[in-house]
């Protein structure tokens, strides 16, 4: 059960078998996706027809449209990045404000606000999506009917997608940054102020550097959650689809291995992001 207790001979073996099965379950789908990005066949299915890079570099006149000439897919990848950048900046900014608000100020209804900030995390994404869709559309109707103004950004489209994703990702950023600010040693700040530093200088040279790991961490998480979001986006999307929506549409129709190619690309990007963050985390732990 634990290493310090006498273990029967089979418990170690059982642990190994279990781990092997578990890891297979975890990685089989991912390895399959990666493998079939290189299969020389029009569909991602066995049997194996040989190795090809067509699904990356093939062009339309070469009978197979590879990832790098599939402008629709590349466009949606770009859309996802733009949306994620917006959501990330907004979320980290409001997360930082909220952290200071909740950790440094006392006011009436603070407890209520603290609970309200968690609420977006318990509402299913689909419902966040439809509520924002309905509200924005009704506002747009209202402005159109009574004032004769058409607000394009209230109609399904990227601005609404950004707002919809932001509505719950902001809550995650708030939690992460608040948790770090709570552990901050206030005496450091007081020392700086006693020694004549201005509030702004204290913020810039002491508090923000201290918060940096939480800011970077929540930015990475926000970017990833925005990039992967499906439920809320599905309800709010207009003409320009982000990547998840585009892939979903193609998967329903039975797509070519170009989807495997873009998936492999995403896996590599995620791995690079994860490794960079972990490296940074390690170095910080060692230096402390």
């Amino acid at each position, binding site marked *: 059960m634990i290493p*310090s207790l006498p273990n029967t001979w089979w418990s170690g073996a059982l642990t190994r078998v279990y781990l092997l099965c578990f890891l297979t379950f975890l990685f089989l789908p991912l390895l399959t996706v990666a493998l079939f990005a290189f299969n020389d066949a029009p569909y991602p299915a066995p049997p194996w027809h040989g190795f090809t890079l067509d699904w990356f570099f093939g062009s339309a006149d070469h009978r197979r449209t590879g990832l790098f000439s599939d402008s629709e897919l590349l466009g949606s990848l770009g859309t996802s990045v733009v949306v994620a950048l917006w959501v990330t900046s907004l979320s980290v900014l409001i997360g930082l404000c909220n952290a200071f608000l909740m950790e440094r100020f006392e006011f009436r209804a603070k407890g209520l606000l603290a609970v309200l900030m968690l609420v977006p995390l318990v509402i299913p994404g689909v419902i966040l999506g439809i509520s924002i869709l309905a509200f924005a559309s009704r506002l747009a109707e209202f402005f159109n009917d009574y004032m004769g103004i058409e607000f394009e950004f209230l109609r399904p489209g990227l601005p609404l997608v950004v707002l919809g994703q932001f509505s719950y990702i902001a809550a995650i950023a708030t939690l992460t940054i608040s948790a770090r600010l709570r552990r901050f040693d206030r005496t450091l700040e007081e020392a700086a102020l006693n020694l004549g530093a201005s509030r702004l200088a204290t913020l810039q040279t002491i508090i923000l550097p201290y918060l940096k790991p939480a800011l970077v961490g929540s930015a990475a998480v926000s970017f990833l959650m925005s990039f992967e979001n499906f439920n809320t986006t599905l309800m709010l999307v207009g003409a320009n689809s982000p990547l998840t929506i585009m892939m979903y549409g193609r998967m329903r129709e039975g797509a070519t291995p170009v989807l495997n190619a873009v998936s492999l690309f995403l896996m590599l990007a995620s791995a690079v992001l994860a490794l960079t963050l972990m490296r940074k985390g390690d170095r910080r732990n060692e230096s402390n």
Partner: protein
Amino acid sequence: MNDGVQSARWVTRLSLFLLLAPAVLWLSALILIPHLDLAVLSLRERIGPRQYSVSVAQYKTFFAEPLYWHIFVRTAIMSIVATGLTLLLAFPVAWIIAKVLSGRASSLLFVICLIPFWISETVRTLGWMILLRESGVLPHVLVLLGLTQQPIEMLYHDATILVGLVYTSLLFMVVPLVGSFESLDNSLIEAASDLGASSRAILTKIIIPHAAPGMTAGCIVVFMLTLGNYLTPTLLGGKNSQWFTEQIYTQFITRFNWEQGAALGFLLLALSTLLVWAGLKLSGQRFSDVMRRA
């Protein structure tokens, strides 16, 4: 002196107001008001072109139409089963990470468990589709091994949906479980074992009571995510998925019947809230603690 105190108070007031504004704007404009608006929308009925009256017709339709509540109950039961299976699968792994392995091996396994969740759910589902569909990898392998004559369709079953849901949710169970196992003192287990407790007794009398908060946190998050999932059931279940979020999508986007869609949305929200509340009550936990843990 008095002026100084007064101006300092003004600065505090002003900064409080400036920090409060974005939070209030975020929560009211994107969460509170849209949901109130959705509630209003669900409580009205179209009686003529651009004419509406207050009514509970949308909710009545839900209860009168067996299809709706059949799918509703089915989604709830499938979500509960998926949550239970996720707990069963994640429990041993979390234990191995927290207690059996130590040092580098333990953190390595933890990181390995997290990797798939850095990758989009769409990609993971694509993987399962390539593995399980009739022309896919597993049916092909079964034929090669001589276990089946013809390739069998492994997609579009309830079991397939469950596999996909469990796979997608694992991380949210493993992380809180590892956290609560790590805080368990090994000497408690050693003492129990020295005093002659069986493995089963150690599990039910020490480990599970200690890990209960983490287990609750994991179960609540997994249940909510599963209930609100759309991608996995529709892709792995196809036409047989019958998932409630799909009904909401159909009403809202395909049929443009927003009143009905809003009512269905509220019913899903109510179900989710109710079961989360029941979970908290049963385990004697507080909402804010659970969210922090998760």
